[in-house]
C-alpha cells in the first residue's frame, strides 16, 4: 500500500547547515550529519540535502557530508544543488546519495536529464522545479520556471516543462513554489495539483509549510506523493512523528515504524 513520505530538507553551505537545526540536543547544531542522524531516529521517510555552496572549491566538503551521512544513517538521501554533469551525479551516488536532484542545469540543457537517466536510471534522477505564478496581459495566469533562487525568469511554462523532463527520464519532481517559499502560508496547491496531475511520476511538494494542515493539504488537495519541509521541523515546532500522527488523523496512509 502506498504511504505518503515526509521529507525534511537541510540547506547546507560549505558543509554546515544554514541557520542550524535545534529540535533535539545536538552537540553541533550546524553539523548536517548530526541533523541527519536525528531525523533518521525521528522516523523521517527520506532526507534531502540542498548544497548551496557558492564556490566550486568547497564542493568536495559536501561529498564528505554525504559519505559520513551514509555511514551513519540507513535511510534514503537525496542531494541537490550545483549538479551540472553526469560526473557530478556519479560521485554523489557513489558517496551514498540515493537520488540526485537537478535544477538549473536541466533548464539550460534538457538533454542532461536524458543522459543522466540513461546512465543511472530514472529512479535516481529528480528534477527540481522552482515555479512562480506569472500574470499575463489579456490571458490567464500561468506558472513559469525561475532559476537562481527565483531571481531569473525563463518564460518556460512549468507544466510543459515538467512533462518534458519526465519524458526525458526524470523519475521524480521536486516542486517548489517560489511565491510560497518562506511564507508559512502553505503550499501553492493549484500549482502542485496542476503538475502532479500532468505527470506519471511522484511529485514532492515544497515551499510554504507553516503548520501540519498544510502537509495534509499538499497530498489531499495538491495530489503530491510526498511533502518536504524545513523550518517547521528544524526549530522544534513540530516533530516528524507529530506531523505523521496528524496526517494519519486526517486519513492519510503513513509509515509509523518506531
Amino acid at each position: 500500500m502506498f504511504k505518503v513520505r515526509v521529507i525534511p530538507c537541510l540547506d547546507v553551505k560549505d558543509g554546515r547547515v544554514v541557520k542550524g537545526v535545534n529540535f533535539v540536543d545536538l552537540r553541533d547544531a550546524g553539523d548536517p550529519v548530526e541533523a541527519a542522524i536525528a531525523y533518521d531516529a525521528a522516523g523521517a521517510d527520506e532526507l534531502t540535502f540542498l548544497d548551496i555552496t557558492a564556490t566550486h572549491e568547497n564542493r568536495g566538503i559536501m561529498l564528505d557530508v554525504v559519505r559520513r551521512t551514509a555511514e551513519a544513517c540507513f535511510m534514503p538521501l537525496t542531494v541537490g544543488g550545483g549538479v551540472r554533469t553526469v560526473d557530478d551525479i556519479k560521485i554523489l551516488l557513489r558517496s551514498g546519495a540515493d537520488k540526485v536532484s537537478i535544477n538549473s542545469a536541466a533548464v539550460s540543457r534538457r538533454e542532461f536529464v536524458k543522459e543522466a537517466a540513461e546512465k543511472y536510471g530514472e529512479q535516481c534522477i529528480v528534477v527540481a522545479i522552482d515555479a512562480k505564478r506569472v500574470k499575463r496581459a489579456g490571458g490567464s495566469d500561468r506558472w513559469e520556471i525561475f532559476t537562481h533562487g527565483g531571481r531569473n525568469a525563463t518564460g518556460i511554462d512549468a507544466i510543459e516543462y515538467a512533462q518534458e523532463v519526465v519524458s526525458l527520464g526524470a523519475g521524480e519532481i521536486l516542486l517548489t513554489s517560489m511565491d510560497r517559499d518562506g511564507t508559512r502560508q502553505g503550499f501553492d496547491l493549484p500549482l502542485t495539483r496542476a503538475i502532479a496531475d500532468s505527470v506519471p511520476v511522484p511529485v514532492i511538494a515544497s515551499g510554504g509549510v507553516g503548520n501540519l494542515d498544510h502537509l495534509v493539504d499538499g497530498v489531499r488537495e495538491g495530489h503530491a506523493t510526498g511533502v518536504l519541509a524545513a523550518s517547521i521541523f528544524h526549530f522544534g515546532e513540530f516533530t516528524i512523528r507529530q506531523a505523521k500522527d496528524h496526517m494519519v488523523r486526517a486519513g492519510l496512509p503513513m509509515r509509523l515504524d518506531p
Partner: protein
Amino acid sequence: MTVAIIDYGSGNLHSAAKAFERAARSMEDPQAIKVTRDPDAVYRADRIVLPGVGAFADCRRGVDAVDGMLEALTEAVRVKARPFFGICVGMQLMATRGKEHVITEGFNWIGGDVVKIEPRDESLKVPHMGWNTLDMVREHPVLERLPLGPKGRHAYFVHSYHLNAANEADVLARADYGGPVTAIVGKDTAVGTQFHPEKSQRFGLALISNFLKWKP
C-alpha cells in the same frame, strides 16, 4: 569469514557496504566485509553481495565488464553453494531476462522476466518510490523474526520494474502497490530484495543480519 560486496560501478555500493559493516559489527561472530572487483576474491568469499541501481542492461554490462566476474560469481553461488544476496537490480539480474527498454539476458538463476510494474490504481505513481510493508509468501531463514504483514515494518522501494517469477516457490515476500510486487526472492543459496535493505533503517539491518547468520 569474508563477505564480498561486488564493485562493478553500482551507485549504491557505498551505502550497501556500510549497512553490511554495521550489521556485521553487531554480531557475535564478526565477518569481514570486503568491497572488491577481483573475481578471485569473489570466488573465495564465504558470502557474496551484488548491489545494483539503475537500468538492467547497464548493470548487466557493468558485471560483464569485469573480466572473469560472471564466471567467478556463477561458480561460487551455483557450484560452491555460497550464500548470495542481490539488492534491487542486483536481485533482478538473477532472472532469466530483463525487459527494461531492451531485452537483456539475466543470470537465469530464477526463472522469470523483469517487467514494468503496472499499478491497477492509476493515481499510483511509477517509479514506485517509498515505503511498503511486506507479506510473506514462503518461510525462509532470512525472514526470521522480521515484522512482516500489513502491521509490520516497512521497506524502502525505488523502482519501476520487478521480477515476475515463473515459479511461485521462488518468491519469499511480496509488497502491494496497486497489485503484487515481488519484494524478496529466494532459491537454493541465493536471495534477493527488490527494495533497499541498506536504506530501510532497522528493518533492513535486521534482514542483513539474518543473511549474515544464514547457513544454508
